[in-house]
C-alpha cells in the first residue's frame, strides 16, 4: 500500500547506522535555533542549521514607523550590541535626509560603539566559556562586562538597550568627568583581560579541544561569504573600520587582527585580541575628540526622505552589518533591509561540522560568532 503524501513533502530513506539529533530549539547550547545533526556513532555526517525561531519582522515593522520611532525596536535584535546595530541605520538615514553630523558627535558615536563591542564580545566569550564547561570563564567576562555597562549607563542612561545613536548625532552629551572615568576603567580592563590568557587561551585543556577543529580555509571563507572575526581568523585582512572607514575611524590609531589558522581556537581568539584594539580606539578617540561643541543636529519633526535609497554598513561585533533603506517621499521608509553578519557566518556550519566529533559541535558553533536573534531579525 502506498501512502498519498501531500505535495512538497518527501519521505526520507533511513540508514540504520545514522541517527538524527535535533539540537535545539530548546537546547541551552544552541540558542534560539535548531541544528539538525546526523551522526554516525560519535561523528557528524551532516548538519543542517534551521534558524527562524525568533523572527520578529523588524524589517516590516520599520515600514510603519518614522525614522525616529524606528530606533528603539531596531536595536532589539542584538541588545548587547545595540549601538553597533543602530550605527549603520543612522548613517543610512543621514545619507537619505542629508544631515550633517557634528564632529564631536562622531567621536562620541565611535566611543559608544567600541564600548558596546566590548560588552558584546565579553558576553559572547562568557557563553563560549560555559559551552566548553569552563565556568570561571563564564564568571570573569560576565563580571568585567559590568565596567563597560557602567560607562554606557553613564553615557546613555540605560544598561543594555541604549537608544543612544540617532540620525544626526547622539541623544545627549557626555556627562561631566566621563573622560577621566572612562580612561580609568579602560586602563584597568586592559590589565585585567591579560589574565584571561593563562586561565583560558593558554590553557592546554582548551587548546586541545579547540585547536584543529572546524577548520575553515581562506578560500572557503571567501567563497562562503563569511564576515567579521570568522573571515579574519581564516587569514583575510578585512575590517570595514579600515577598508571603508565611516565617521572618524580613519583618524584613529588601531590595527586589524588577523590569524591564519582558521580553526575554532583562532576564531575565538580574534574577538579577544580585538578588545585590546577597541580599548586603543577608545583612548585615542577620547584624546582626539573636540572638547566642546554640538552633539546633535536638530531635525525637522517627522523628517521625510526623498525618492532615494541608501546603503551603509559598519563592522559590528559579528561582522559587517548593513542597512539598505529605500524612501519614497514619506516620513516612513518604504523598505528597510538589514544585512547581518550572523546569518552569513551560519552558512559555513554544514562545512565545518562534517566529519567532526559531536562533542566539538558547541565549540565550533559558538566560535562562529553567531547571534540567533540578529540572524532572524
Amino acid at each position: 500500500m502506498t501512502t498519498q503524501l501531500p505535495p512538497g513533502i518527501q519521505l526520507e530513506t533511513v540508514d540504520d547506522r545514522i541517527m538524527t539529533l535535533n539540537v535545539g530549539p530548546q537546547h541551552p547550547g544552541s540558542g534560539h535555533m535548531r541544528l539538525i545533526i546526523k551522526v554516525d556513532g560519535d561523528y557528524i555526517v551532516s548538519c543542517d542549521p534551521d534558524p527562524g525561531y525568533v523572527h520578529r519582522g523588524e524589517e516590516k515593522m520599520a515600514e510603519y514607523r518614522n525614522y525616529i520611532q524606528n530606533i528603539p525596536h531596531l536595536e532589539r535584535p542584538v541588545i548587547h550590541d545595540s549601538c553597533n546595530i543602530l550605527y549603520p541605520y543612522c548613517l543610512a538615514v543621514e545619507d537619505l535626509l542629508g544631515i550633517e553630523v557634528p564632529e564631536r558627535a562622531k567621536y562620541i558615536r565611535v566611543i559608544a560603539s567600541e564600548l558596546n563591542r566590548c560588552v558584546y564580545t565579553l558576553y559572547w566569550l562568557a557563553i563560549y566559556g560555559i559551552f566548553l564547561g569552563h565556568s570561571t570563564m563564564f564568571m570573569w567576562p560576565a563580571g568585567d562586562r559590568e565596567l563597560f555597562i557602567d560607562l554606557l549607563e553613564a553615557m546613555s542612561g540605560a544598561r543594555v538597550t541604549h537608544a543612544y545613536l540617532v540620525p544626526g548625532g547622539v541623544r545627549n552629551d557626555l556627562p561631566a568627568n566621563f573622560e577621566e572615568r572612562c580612561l580609568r576603567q579602560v586602563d584597568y580592563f586592559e590589565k585585567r583581560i591579560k589574565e584571561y590568557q593563562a586561565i583560558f587561551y593558554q590553557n592546554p585543556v582548551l587548546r586541545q579541544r579547540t585547536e584543529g577543529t572546524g577548520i575553515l580555509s581562506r578560500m572557503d571563507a571567501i567563497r562562503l561569504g563569511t564576515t567579521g572575526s570568522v573571515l579574519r581568523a581564516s587569514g583575510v585582512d578585512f575590517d570595514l573600520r579600515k577598508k571603508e572607514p565611516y565617521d572618524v575611524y580613519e583618524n584613529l590609531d588601531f590595527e586589524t587582527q588577523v590569524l591564519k589558522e582558521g580553526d575554532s581556537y583562532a576564531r575565538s581568539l580574534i574577538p579577544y585580541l580585538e578588545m585590546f584594539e577597541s580599548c586603543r580606539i577608545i583612548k585615542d578617540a577620547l584624546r582626539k575628540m573636540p572638547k566642546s561643541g554640538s552633539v546633535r543636529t536638530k531635525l525637522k519633526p517627522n523628517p521625510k526622505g526623498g525618492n532615494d535609497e541608501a546603503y551603509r554598513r559598519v563592522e559590528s561585533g559579528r561582522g559587517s552589518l548593513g542597512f539598505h533603506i529605500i524612501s519614497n517621499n514619506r516620513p516612513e521608509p518604504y523598505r528597510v533591509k538589514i544585512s547581518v553578519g550572523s546569518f552569513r557566518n551560519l552558512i559555513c556550519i554544514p562545512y565545518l561540522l562534517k566529519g567532526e566529533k559531536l562533542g566539538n559541535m558547541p565549540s565550533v558553533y559558538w566560535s562562529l560568532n553567531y547571534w540567533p536573534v540578529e540572524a532572524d531579525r
Partner: protein
Amino acid sequence: MSTAGGIIRALNSGVKHLAVKRFTLRYPEQKLKFVGDGFQFDPQTGVGIAGLKGRHILFHDKCTGCQLCSVACEGIAEAIGMVKVKETWKHNKKAIMPQIDYGKCVFCGLCVDACPFYALYMTNDYELSSFTKSALIYTPGQLAVKPNISQDVEIKIGKRGATHG
C-alpha cells in the same frame, strides 16, 4: 609550553584571585550611583542631558496637555495615554495629562525628547515591580512624585582589583 606547566599556570591565575576583592554588587543592600537626576532634555538646543532613563517625572505646572509625548510613543511602546485630571490649569484648558503604563514602557526616553515644555523628565527610580499589572499604570498624580532613593555605590579601582566596596 608543556601541558602540565600550562595547567599549573591556569590554576595559579585562579588561585591569585583568592586575594582579589569581590567585584559583585550586593544589590538590594547596595545601589549603584548614577550621574545626575535622570535623563532630561532641553528643547531649545535639541540635546539631552545625561542621566538614567528610569521612571518619569511629570511637572503639572508645565504640562499643557499637547499630547506630543503620547504621539511619540505611538509605534514604540504605546505606553502613554492621555487622561483627564481634576485640577484645572490656565495653560492646560483640556485638563489632560499623560498616564504611563510601565508594563509596556521600554524606557527609550523619546517621549522626553518630544516634550517642548520641560514638563516630562526621567528619574533615577528603576524599581517598579508590582504584584498586579494595573499597579504598573502610573497616573499623572503618581508621576508628579519625586522619587526618594539612596544610591551611592561606585566602582572603585585599586591595586587589588575593581570592587563595588
